């Protein structure tokens, strides 16, 4: 039992108790206002980096990535600026100008925080992705949202908006939601059985009804999200969906799709379909973000479907509170590298 779980029911309304805590501890939730430190960000798909430098900011800090004789480099300055002698050297790189860097799961992971604390053991463990990477190009996507990463995580944990914003059929009867968390992650699982199959897939699946399970696991400190969806009968979605906070108004998600039980053509098109869905999300996230940024302390109201979103806010606020006091450490239950396969598959 995690530290958080032990006292969670007091603040987050339980799924079974409707209206128990309409206005929750969300008044101090201020997305885009605090940069959480000491974490790895999968800033770019490493196979997409060549000799030409790419800029991938994190929390407004520049990170230039390029390859030098095949070896990946991550610096605060572009190589051209380095040649001209313009050198940034912040505390994030301990004055060296070069960020701690690791290549894993096909990503270049960059450490944001105190370089002395950087350890590859703190890179989140991603099930379903080979450690060496080498995934085909059509597995990779790159989606930019016009909002802070907290709202993207909130959106991914909120599994009920899908029925509405991405609505192909509106109501889902009998779906159940379960939420769990540690001091670093929030996991939400949603099950529904006997749900109508979307019209377009009916002929192929030869079925009218299907059941599904969707699991979202969010690493709160970095916004790295693991999405797992399984439709019976139907496809299985295994995605890594990082939400890299470039600024308070911009989040880059360097997505890896790993779709199973799908035709090759559909697998090739999935990064494009990802954009279609992201576009619908961005339609809501963009105006939402403005209102959270210029918030004057109003509180959000919640229904019993928002348990995961509230748990995220709670974990996030506790991290912010600890980091304000200078505590950037990971608690024993929050090891990012723990194996989450069972957690995801069990739900």
């Amino acid at each position: 039992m995690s530290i958080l779980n032990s006292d969670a029911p007091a603040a987050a309304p339980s799924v079974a108790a409707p209206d128990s805590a309409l206005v929750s501890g969300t008044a101090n939730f201020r997305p885009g206002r605090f940069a959480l430190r000491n974490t790895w960000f999968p800033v770019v798909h490493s196979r997409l980096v060549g000799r030409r430098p790419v800029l991938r900011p994190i929390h407004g800090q520049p990170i230039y990535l390029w390859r030098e004789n095949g070896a990946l480099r991550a610096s605060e300055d572009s190589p051209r600026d380095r040649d001209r002698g313009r050198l940034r050297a912040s505390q994030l790189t301990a004055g060296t100008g070069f960020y701690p860097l690791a290549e894993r799961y096909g990503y270049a992971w960059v450490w944001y925080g105190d370089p002395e604390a950087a350890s590859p053991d703190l890179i989140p463990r991603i099930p379903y992705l080979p450690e060496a990477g080498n995934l085909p190009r059509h597995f990779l996507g790159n989606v930019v949202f016009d909002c802070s990463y907290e709202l993207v995580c909130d959106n991914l944990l909120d599994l009920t908006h899908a029925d509405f914003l991405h609505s192909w059929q509106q109501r889902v009867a009998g779906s159940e939601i379960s939420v769990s968390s540690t001091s670093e992650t929030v996991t939400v699982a949603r099950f529904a059985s006997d749900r109508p199959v979307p019209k377009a897939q009916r002929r192929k699946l030869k079925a009218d009804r299907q059941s599904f399970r969707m699991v979202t696991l969010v690493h709160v400190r970095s916004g790295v999200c693991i999405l797992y969806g399984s439709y019976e009968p139907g496809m299985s979605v295994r995605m890594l969906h990082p939400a890299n906070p470039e600024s308070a108004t911009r989040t880059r998600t360097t997505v890896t799709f790993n779709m199973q039980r799908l035709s090759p053509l559909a697998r090739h098109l999935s990064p494009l379909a990802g954009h279609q869905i992201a576009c619908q999300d961005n339609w809501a996230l963009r105006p939402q973000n403005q209102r959270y940024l210029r918030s004057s302390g109003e509180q959000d109201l919640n229904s019993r479907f928002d348990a995961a979103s509230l748990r995220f806010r709670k974990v996030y606020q506790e991290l912010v509170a600890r980091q304000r006091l200078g505590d950037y450490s990971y608690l024993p239950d929050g090891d990012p590298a723990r194996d989450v396969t069972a957690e995801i598959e069990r739900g």
Partner: protein
Amino acid sequence: MSVREQVSIASADGTALSREAADGLSSTASAESASRTPGPGREPFGLAAGWWPVSFGSELGDSPRGVRLGAREVVAYRDQAGAAHTLADQCPHRRLPLSMGLVIPEGLQCGYHGWTFDGTSGQCTLIPNLRPAEKPSGRIRVPAYPVVEADGFVFVWTGPGPADPMASPLPALGAPAVPYQGRTIRGVAKVRAPHARLSAALLVNPGAALGLSWLLGGGGEVLGPEVTVDTSGVTARRHRLVWNLPRVPTFDPVSNWAAPSTVATVPATGMTVAVADAPVGGGTVRIVIGLTPTGLYRTTVRWRIEAHTEGACLVTEACRWVGAARRLARRVARALEAAADAVETVTDPAVDRLREVRAAAVGEELS
């Protein structure tokens, strides 16, 4: 360590600090505002209490419309029975503007999670996925504002509490006993001028401001003004020269053609009605002008021209063509802006009375 390095360390920390600092600042600000407006109440518009025009009735169709009024954003929509409603333009759930939603039989539905709100009370009527026996909590509501439709405009009450039954959205002037069913001309312009100056400019010389000097007179004042103040507003009667032509000093103007006009304004909102004699066809022409303040220096001006006799329809037809030409020449907003600028230096008894009434209202509110 070089100076450059030290500077860049400071800037690197500065970003994190500025996020922190911004947080600190806004949290004190939020504590203040939270104590001012606890929970969903009626939010302050930063405007005088009154009926403020937010749109033409005909602008509200099947989809909701977001309007900025003073310091607030409101959403106006027409329900399926045809009644207009206005709510605060923010879902209390995840803050999406409700103007991005849909009108359904249960009310106005947010586009993100489908929470639906009743237009009259603001009460949440529907949350998708609830069990059939479950009802949304009575505490889930958005601020709803009283609405009235008159003379083709939709008005929103901005005062605290229910609308004052004595307050009238329009000045009592020139409304025909039997409304004429013929053609009316509408116009809209977004103007870069503050609301108070525009409303004074329309009281002084609506003809020049709206490009209707051939109807209301836009040049020098020949007769008047005759100013009266009553409960419904400030009224000014005067005759102005129709042509505002350059004049050789000490000589008579080239044309002495003057037009009479009567202009009345509601002091709080600047809702203005001007009545003029139709130059052809007999009868009168009535012009209703609504001002919607959308920022400190931004006002949306809407006007509606109606003729009260068959013959005066020629006038509205002329207004249509002249208006189209002015829109093409991009002169509509420019003329209104020039009029608002000119009012700063004008000496006019009607404007003096208007300012007196406004100052008295503010004093009353303070005491």
